[in-house]
């Protein structure tokens, strides 16, 4: 692993977005930042700003009202980026599947890299997803660098 790759892997900045969740998964996402799970030891900080974020943590089924906002946030996040769908609702729509006001999972609107199961998803599972996501991110970075010919 080169120094540049190491730097990228050691500093994933998080942005959390709620697309209509019941607040269960949101609390688990926030638990990540508390002393018990402390993802800051991996270099992750909550920036709440798409322009400065690397990892989008999306919770909840994507309601039709939220669709444009989610797409907007995704487009404002600079490459290389990572999208993690946290919880059953964000992954598939779960009980809200086929509701008239809901799109289903996050992947109906923006491409998703990692799905985290659970209702609500466990913080341990979220940490696992982050670690898995970072290894995928590395591949993404290498592909991006290859495309740009840098």
């Amino acid at each position, binding site marked *: 692993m080169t120094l540049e790759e190491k730097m*990228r892997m050691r500093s994933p900045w998080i942005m959390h977005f709620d697309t209509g969740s019941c607040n269960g998964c949101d609390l688990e996402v926030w638990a990540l930042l508390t002393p018990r799970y402390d993802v*800051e030891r991996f270099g992750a900080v909550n920036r709440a*700003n798409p322009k400065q974020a690397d990892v989008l943590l999306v919770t909840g089924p994507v309601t039709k009202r939220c669709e444009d906002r989610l797409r907007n946030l995704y487009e404002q996040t600079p490459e290389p980026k990572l999208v993690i769908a946290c919880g059953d609702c964000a992954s598939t729509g779960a009980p809200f599947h086929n509701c008239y006001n809901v799109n289903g999972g996050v992947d109906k609107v923006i491409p998703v890299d990692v799905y985290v199961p659970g209702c609500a998803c466990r913080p341990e599972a979220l940490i696992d997803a982050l670690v898995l996501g970072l290894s995928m991110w590395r591949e993404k970075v290498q592909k991006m660098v290859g495309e740009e010919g840098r």
Partner: protein
Amino acid sequence: MEVITYILQLLIIILAPLAVGLGAGIDRKITARMQNRLGPPVVQPFYDIGKLLAKRPMLLSRLQVVFAGAALLFHAAALALFVAGGDLIVAFFVSGTGSICLVMGAFSARSPYSYIGGQRELLAILAYEPVLFLVVLAIGLETSFLVSGIGGGLLIALPLVLLALIPVLVILLEKSPFDVPTAHQEIMSGPYVEYSGPYLAIMEVARWFQLAFVFGLVTLFFWSADPVVSAGGKLALAFAVLFVTIIIDNITARLTRGRMVRFMLTVGVGLVAINLLVLFVIGQGAI
């Protein structure tokens, strides 16, 4: 001898912001330990800068980048002037211009969040610049305005002035109770909100240069004839001041912008004034 001095000065100009970055890492680690967390590695700020530089740039307006570059240049120039033994007042004003460039950069983007951040940064400048200026004046009146002419005895003569520098550093380090420009609970990144990737890294490095200048002012307070003792004492004093700001950060909540300005313009200015008054009275008595 001359050449060695130049090389040493150049080394300090390059190493001082890196030391501030390391200080930021130590700060995050100590804060985490105080909150019973493990915290990121000490070199985390460098990882962040490296990652930001490697991100794909997203440009909002060219003017914004110009201002980011200008802020970096002015802060670096202020530190260079300081290290080269130049005039403290000139270095102070050059550093102040760098701060204004940060605000102009925030205003040059068409974004309400960036505007709020810029306005708040202006208020922060209004709060800390008068105190910083009085600190510079007090140091100059006590010994010399030229950094190269400043000798020992500042800590004994001006203890309250050093105390007045601590809230200034609290504002500059964006720590509570005075983290008004980048209020984390509501506007998150303040004046930096529209910067991303490499441009955010430029702003971050500019801030490191600015902090290196202010920590340089702190190191002036310790002086010894022995260069090794002098350097060690200066580092220890700078770290002690950093540690005090970390403790203040962890035991306080953010105050409103009005209270920040009021505190700095009364207590901050008052501390420097009392110190100078006492010095003046003692000086009169000696005569």
